[in-house]
Each structure stands twice: as structure tokens, then as C-alpha cells.
């Protein structure tokens, strides 16, 4: 009977073969048809480790190193491997308490027990020194090297800007950035980010199931090197910048100096300022919060580019130029000044006492309000135009050709337009076309709605010294090589005013310094031209304003100084400007007592202020 069952071996063999067939089919599916397993396999074993390049360095115009990098270290942790460690010791080394330690470990473990996360970011080299010796006692912890920005001199914080972690939005929009990367947030760091950042490298490592490093993947065939960022050569003069910051200590305001022949910014001072080293590494967040919270002194506010001041009498220079261009003003034009300019209804734009009548040079030298109110009227009421509006629009266009009321387009972030009011503004305020030259007469003396930034004022001085043109001001003169030229800023921008009309204005400015409103700031050895301004404003005392350039011919430096709520232009801004010119042109300052008085004056903390200095001694403008 059992022999008869021999056929059953075929059934049994059939079962064997069926199982073999199922396995083969399954293998075809898993190994050949689907891709997800090989992708998962790579995720398992390959770790892509970014090699962070050093950011580009920044030098000053004389080759001084301003911004560089220092090695910093991120303390990383792989929670799964961090076992049996002396928690108290580690807490002591990095300066955190037990609760914070626990909180960070939980966070890291939630991300992944097997993968690295940052435990303490950007530990400085000094602090790393203490940690390094003992790191071997903390399994699961290791360091990854990064770099940290360092500033040789604690100056020009707003201009340099700072770097911060790339936000999710940025990471979304730009494939270069990954979570944990740093990016320039403002200043040069932002505007030159793509040059400064360099090129990241990548190392592909193989790891085992506990994330232990098992060597490079295929002998490093897919590894790439990191390339350091491009070095930038700024036009800043470190001495001048530092000197200006000292002069502006305990004052609100700004100094901007430009080399007119090139448009290179020599210094750009904003006060109050802060130490750029505060916004670096793991102290950045805390310090940044403190700076933001300082609403009284607003140290983060970049006045040089963002503060809009009425230019006051410095604007009379623009009146003089536009008036000549419009054919309503000549060097010989004379107006008499009865101590003010009547604007009707018994109201008056006052003027101080001075000889009368005056021609154009005299009016600039003395800064006669009446004269320039008349000039402004003659421009706006010019019969060549069919309406006040048309004349005003023409005036506005010519004023804006000086780079006023619009962004100049420099290579530092944060610049604002300033404001030369549009006709629409007056329509809204007075009704459509229901405004006349007398309605807006204060524009003629740089008051009212007009707002100009310190950078624009300095550029105005540079434009006048060039007799009618400017280069877009810029802070980076060379990229990569010291003697290259930043290609974005080589074009000459001409104003709408014929260069021929500038000489008379320059003469007037020379007289301002030699025997006019700023004669107290005269420097015997330097032939310089200037114009004072005293800007009325709703925030308190007048702003003290001065623009200047020197020497009169072959000008090397044009400058604007604004000291907020300090009084006459001649009292504060002019002497500060003259010290800056002396510093730049002579490399040393001989007027030590003036220098000392300016540096020590405190105009913001309400203690002495030196407000009384020279009252009556300086001429109003």
C-alpha cells in the first residue's frame, strides 16, 4: 500500500518548489522592482558632514584687518552614546545648570537618540580649552569646528552687520542653506553674503547602527573640499572711523565721510553704537535682546542710513544751484533782508542780523533766510511753468538728481529714501493744487517735510566738491584682490545742474569757513569749504548740522556731521567736522583742547552738557 503512495513525493516536491517560487518572486520585488530599500539603506549608513568654510576677511583702506574668523566649536551630543557621564562636571564646564542639561538632553533625544544634535553652540576657543582636556570623559559628546566672527577694533558695528542662523524661510528659498547654517543678517555681511560665505564642502562618512564613525565612504570619492569666502577690501579708514566714534561718544547723531573722486566711504559713524563683538556666537541672542530693549538710545538704529533730518541751512546750497539752473538766480542777484521774510498773515521766517543787501556768495556765507526764501519763490513761481505744481515737480526732479529723497544704492543694507515731498503729499494736506510757493516756503531753508539722511548729506558735499557729479557711495572698494575695483560703482552720476554753476557755490562755502558762520572751526593749514545747518525739529532742541569738503581743489574728503538736539550747526557739527578733516588729511590733530571738549561733551545723559558753550559766540545760520 505504501509503495502505491509514491506519487506523493511529487506533491511534496511541488510544495517545496512552490515555496521556492514565492521566495523568488518576493526577492524580485524587494531587490529589483522597488527603490525604497536602497534609499533607506543609504539613510542608515551614510552621514553627510558639512565642512564649513571660513568667511571672507574684511580689511580697511590701509590694509588693516577689521573682521576675521576665530575657530569656535559646537559641542555635539549623540544621546544614545552619552551614558554614565559626570553631569555636574559637564554642567560646570559649559556653565549651565542641571535643569538646563536635562532639558537639552531631552530635546536632543527627541530629535534622535542615534544622531548628533548641537548641545552647546559656538563655544569660543578660550572656553574650549578647558573643555577639550576633559572631553574624553564624556562619551557621546564631541565637537564640530565652526568659525566665529571677530572684530579687531570695536568699531563700525552697523556697517559690518552681523551673522545669524539661517531662518526656515531662507532655507526654503535658497538651496545653499541648511538648518544650522549661518547667514549675514545685515550690513556688509548681508550685502556681500554670496561672496563672504565661500563654498561649503561635504564629507561622506559611513556609520554603524550606533552612529559610530566607520571611516570615509568609498575612500572619499564623493567628498568635496570647503573653499573659504572671498576677502573684501573696504574703503573705511580705521583711524578715522575710530576717531569719529570717539568724537560722537555720548551724542546722538552721525558722521559720514566720502572720497568724492571715487565715492568710497571713508567712515560711517552712527551714535549711539555698540561693540560688534557683542553679536557673535552664543552670546549674540542675549546681547541682541538687550540692544533691542534699549529704546532710549536705540543703539541698533543705523542713523547714518536711516535717520531723516531736515537739512536746515545746508539745503540753501541746493537752492543756489537749482536757482541758477532754472535761470532765476545769478551770482549778482541781490536781495535785501529786513530781518526776516514775510509770508503773509503777519507771519514771518526770521533771519538774524547781518549786513544787507547781499549777493549770492554773501548770502551763502551769512546763511540769509530771506535771500533763499526769495530764491525758492522765484523757482516755484517761475512764469516759464504753467502752474505751481509743474514748477514744483521740476524743482523736485532736480533736487532728487543730487541723490536726495531716494536711495543712493550703497552696498550696505538698511538705507532709507529720505523724503522730498511729492505734489500728492501737498494735495492731500492742502487740497488738490491748493498750495502755492508761500505754502511750502520752508522747503527753501531746508525745513518742513523734507528729510535727508547723513549719507545723502555727505554725498551732497561730495557732489558739490566734484562740481556736479558723484559716484554711488560704497564701502567695499575691492573684492578678492586688494587693487581690484568694485565694478558696481565706477559710473559717474551727473546732477541736472550744469557744472558751471557750482564754482560760485564752492566760493560761498569757502567763505563760510574763512569768515562766515563756521569761521570758529577754521583750520589754518587746510583750505576747506563748508555749510552750517541748524534744523528745527519737533523732538526738542535743534539738530546741529554741518557739511564740508577739503581741500577746495583736488578734494580728498567730503563729510556730513549731524548732532541731534545740540543747537547751532556752528557749535557742534562744524568743530567735529573740522577735527575729522584734520585727522584724515594730517593724520594727527593739533587742536587738543577742542578735541578734548568735543570728545568729553555728553549731550544725551542730561548731565552737563556743554550746551552753553559758545552761545552768542557762534553765528546762527
Amino acid at each position: 500500500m505504501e509503495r502505491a503512495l509514491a506519487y506523493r513525493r511529487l506533491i511534496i516536491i511541488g510544495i517545496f518548489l512552490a515555496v521556492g517560487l514565492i521566495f523568488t518572486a518576493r526577492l524580485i520585488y524587494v531587490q529589483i522592482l522597488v527603490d525604497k530599500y536602497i534609499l533607506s539603506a543609504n539613510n542608515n549608513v551614510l552621514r553627510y558632514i558639512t565642512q564649513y568654510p571660513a568667511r571672507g576677511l574684511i580689511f580697511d583702506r590701509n590694509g588693516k584687518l577689521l573682521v576675521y574668523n576665530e575657530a569656535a566649536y559646537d559641542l555635539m551630543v549623540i544621546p544614545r552614546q552619552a551614558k554614565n557621564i559626570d553631569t555636574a562636571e559637564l554642567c560646570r564646564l559649559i556653565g549651565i545648570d542641571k535643569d538646563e542639561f536635562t532639558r537639552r538632553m531631552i530635546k536632543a533625544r527627541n530629535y534622535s537618540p542615534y544622531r548628533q544634535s548641537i548641545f552647546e553652540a559656538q563655544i569660543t576657543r578660550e572656553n574650549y580649552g578647558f573643555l577639550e582636556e576633559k572631553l574624553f570623559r564624556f562619551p557621546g559628546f564631541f565637537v564640530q569646528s565652526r568659525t566665529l566672527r571677530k572684530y579687531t577694533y570695536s568699531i563700525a558695528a552697523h556697517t559690518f552687520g552681523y551673522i545669524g542662523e539661517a531662518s526656515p524661510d531662507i532655507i526654503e528659498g535658497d538651496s545653499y542653506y541648511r538648518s544650522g547654517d549661518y547667514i549675514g543678517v545685515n550690513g556688509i555681511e548681508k550685502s556681500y553674503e554670496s561672496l563672504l560665505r565661500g563654498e561649503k564642502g561635504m564629507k561622506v562618512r559611513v556609520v554603524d547602527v550606533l552612529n559610530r564613525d566607520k571611516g570615509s565612504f568609498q575612500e572619499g570619492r564623493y567628498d568635496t573640499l570647503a573653499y573659504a569666502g572671498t576677502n573684501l577690501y573696504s574703503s573705511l579708514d580705521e583711524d578715522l572711523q575710530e576717531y569719529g566714534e570717539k568724537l560722537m561718544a555720548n551724542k546722538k547723531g552721525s558722521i559720514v565721510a566720502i572720497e568724492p573722486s571715487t565715492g568710497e566711504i571713508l567712515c560711517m559713524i552712527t551714535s549711539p553704537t555698540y561693540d560688534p563683538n557683542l553679536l557673535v556666537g552664543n552670546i549674540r541672542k542675549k546681547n541682541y535682546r538687550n540692544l533691542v530693549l534699549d529704546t532710549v538710545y536705540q543703539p541698533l538704529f543705523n542713523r547714518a542710513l536711516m535717520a531723516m533730518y531736515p537739512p536746515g541751512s545746508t539745503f540753501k546750497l541746493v537752492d543756489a544751484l537749482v536757482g541758477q539752473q532754472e535761470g532765476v538766480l545769478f551770482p549778482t542777484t541781490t536781495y535785501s533782508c529786513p530781518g526776516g521774510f514775510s509770508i503773509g498773515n503777519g507771519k514771518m521766517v526770521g533771519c538774524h542780523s547781518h549786513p544787507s543787501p547781499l549777493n549770492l556768495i554773501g548770502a551763502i556765507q551769512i546763511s540769509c533766510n530771506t535771500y533763499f526764501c526769495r530764491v525758492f519763490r522765484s523757482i516755484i513761481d517761475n512764469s516759464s511753468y504753467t502752474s505751481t505744481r509743474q514748477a514744483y515737480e521740476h524743482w523736485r526732479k532736480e533736487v532728487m538728481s543730487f541723490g536726495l529723497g531716494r536711495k543712493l544704492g550703497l552696498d550696505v543694507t538698511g538705507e532709507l529714501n529720505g523724503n522730498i515731498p511729492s505734489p500728492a503729499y501737498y494735495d492731500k494736506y492742502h487740497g488738490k493744487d491748493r498750495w502755492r510757493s508761500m505754502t511750502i516756503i520752508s522747503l527753501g531753508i531746508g525745513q518742513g517735510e523734507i528729510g535727508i539722511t547723513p549719507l545723502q548729506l555727505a554725498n551732497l558735499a561730495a557732489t558739490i566738491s566734484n562740481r556736479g557729479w558723484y559716484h554711488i557711495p560704497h564701502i567695499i572698494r575691492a573684492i578678492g584682490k586688494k587693487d581690484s575695483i568694485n565694478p558696481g560703482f565706477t559710473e559717474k552720476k551727473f546732477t541736472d545742474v550744469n557744472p558751471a554753476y557750482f564754482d560760485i557755490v564752492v566760493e560761498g562755502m569757502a567763505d563760510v569757513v574763512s569768515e562766515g558762520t563756521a569761521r570758529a572751526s577754521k583750520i589754518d593749514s587746510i583750505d576747506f569749504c563748508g555749510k552750517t545747518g541748524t534744523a528745527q525739529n519737533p523732538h526738542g532742541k535743534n539738530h546741529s548740522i554741518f557739511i564740508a569738503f577739503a581741500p577746495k581743489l583736488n578734494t580728498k574728503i567730503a563729510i556730513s556731521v549731524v548732532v541731534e538736539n545740540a543747537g547751532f550747526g556752528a557749535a557742534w557739527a562744524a568743530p567735529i567736522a573740522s577735527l575729522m578733516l584734520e585727522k584724515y588729511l594730517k593724520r594727527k590733530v593739533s587742536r587738543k583742547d577742542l578735541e578734548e571738549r568735543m570728545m568729553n561733551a555728553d549731550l544725551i545723559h542730561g548731565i552737563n552738557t556743554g550746551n552753553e558753550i559758545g552761545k552768542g559766540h557762534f553765528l546762527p545760520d
Partner: protein
Amino acid sequence: MKSEKGIFYRIDLVLVSLYVALVLMGWLNIYAAVYNDSHQAITDLHQKYGKQMVFILASLLLAISILIIDPKFFSQFAYFIYGFFLLMSVVVIFAGREIAGSKSWFAIGGFGIQPAEFAKMATALALAKFLGYLDRNIKHPRTLVIAVSIIILPALLILLEHDTGSALVFFCFVLVLYRAGLSGYVLLALLVIPVLGVLALIINKYILVAVLFTISGFIYLRSRRRARTLMIALAIFLASSGLVFSVHFAVNHVLEPHQRQRINVLLGNNTDLKGAGYNVNQSLIAIGSGRFWGKGFLQGTQTKYNFVPEQSTDFIFCTVGEEHGFIGSFIVIALFLGLMIRIVMNADRQRSKFSRLYGYGVASLFFIHFGINIGMALGILPVIGIPLPFFSYGGSSLWAFTILLFIFIRQDAMRNELV
């Protein structure tokens, strides 16, 4: 006795070659699975591959010894061997060492011996011995009961050692019973029940019962002798419906949590890849990443860097899949199929009923290990920890399968002398 001289000329060289091939491939795969750069010598006795080499050398001695021993010894002493390992299975419960939850190891020196591995071989011998008497008819209830008891007894003891996987192996002997004359319906039922069980877990059980009712009704209506089939159809319906409900009950109330999880993982109900599904998922990643040609010997990253757990024992097939790809995996499957089919073919040419049934026992044991182990690695079956013969690291398993196979080779060589 004079025929004894020729034994080495009459052994089946095909089987011996398959054996040698599988053992050597197994050894190289263990080397690849445990390989690391600091211990490169395959003969390093401190590493698993070095130890496996010793096991292999020992099994060669075992194989040769078996080939010299009088083949009648094994049929003569089958019950004694069976009894000895039953005893060992009891002793191990009290004197054994617990490893990974199973108390199934004797610690002898640095090595562990697992009596369960040998009990399988002993059961194959005893079953063949019992059914090998010419007058034994499995249709006879008493014979069937005793035969089933021979199978169940060691399985129960092993279950007491908490080694569920090894206990399940004993199901394979149904193939021996089938060859000895057991009704085909029993075999069919054993094949259908697991399928029905899985369906019970993935399909709504009431729908399933309705389908079963339809099938039973169909059988009844198609039948010519309705009076008789009514009872059968009803029985099928009731039995299968009962199964559907009891599977639910068993999975949810009887199985231990980790076993329940394994079943859920298999059915796709549990996608927790860091938890219960981790093993199977990593196993598939390793095998799948091998693609067609494999990554090459010692080039596997998933197994070498320990992503796959139990990679040198239960999940050794992952190393084959990753490093040797589809081609390598297919070759291993083909070699196993070749071995099993060859044993079955040889079994049927035996004159001795003992030898024949023993051969079926050998093939069945290989088959169930092959099926469960690779099925598990491929994610077709739940995670059940039993070794892949000749591939999984471990002396007990290698020796037990060597003895198992070579007793058959010895019987086969002497097939003309044995009746």
C-alpha cells in the same frame, strides 16, 4: 561486511557536494556579517567566524564517524536516541542556562549546546522507526495516535523551554505522515488553516464567515450524494468559522504581547519601524539594497554595521541578500531546493521503509527551517527565531543538521543491503 569497504564509493556525491557548498557559503557569510576591520583573519578563534570554522571541522569528524558506523545502529537505537534527547530536553529546563528568554541551553565550557536541535533529528529517527515496521498502517487509529505522540512530545517539552520557534518546527513531520499514508485532506487542512488564519486577521470576520458559508453551500449543491456531503459541508463550515473566531481570540487574548506585535507587523497593522517592526524593516532594507548583483563580498553596509539584529543567526539571509544580491539569494534558494528534492528522490529509492521515512523526515526538517527562516527575512512570515541550516552561526544547529543528513546518506549508501 565486505560491502563496508566500499562505503565511500557509494555515497551520494551530489548530496555531499550540496552539503559542502552550503556549509562553506554559510561560513563565508558569517564572516561577512561579523567582519570588522580590526579582526580580519577568518580563522580568528575569538570571532564568530573562527568559532564556526571549529564547528565545521568538528562536523566533518561527525560526518565521517557516521559514515563508518554500521547503518543498522541508527534504526536499532532510534528509540534510545529519542529517549535520550527527550530526557535532555527535560533536564535542560532545570539545569539549562537562559539565553534571550529561552531556557534551552546547556553551558559546556565556553559553548552552549541546545538539545532541541538534536531532538528534531531524534524525532525523525523514532518516527521512521515506529512507522518503519511493515505492518504499521497509519489509518489505524492507535498507530496514528502513537505516531502523533512521538512528534508532539518533544515539541511540548521545547515549548516548556519557551522556545516557540523550535517547537513549531515539529509540524513539518506531517509530511512524513502524509507520505506514510495520512489522508491528503489533513495536509490540505494544514495548508489552508494558516491562510484562513491570516485572512481572519485582515478581513472583517463576518464577511469571511459569509464567504465560508457560500463555499460550503457550493460544495453541498455540487455533490451527487447530498445526504453525505451535507454533514461534510456543515462540518467544514462550522470548523472554519470556529477557526476564524478562535484566531481572533488567540491573537488578542492568548499570545504574548511581543508575539501579537510580530503578527501585526507582518499584516501591516503595525508600522512602528523603530519598535516591533524594526527587525523586519531593516532586514528588507539590507536585502533590497543588494539589488541584482549585490554589493560584493564584505561590502554590505547594513549587516556589517549592525543595522540588522541577529544578523549572524536568525537574519543571516540578509547578508546573502545584501552582498550577493538577487543572484546570490536565488542560488542559495536553488541549492536548498536541490538538497531537499534530492533527499526526497533518494528516499523513494530506498528498499527499507525505515530509511525512506527517515529521508522524508530529513527533507521535511530542512524544508521547514528553510521556509520559516527565509520567509521571515523576506517579511512574509512573522519573526520566528529558528536557524537557517548551515548558514546560521552556532554549533548545535550545524552538528544536528550534519548528523541528520549524514545518517540518511549512510542509509542511502547501503540501500541495497538494508531492507
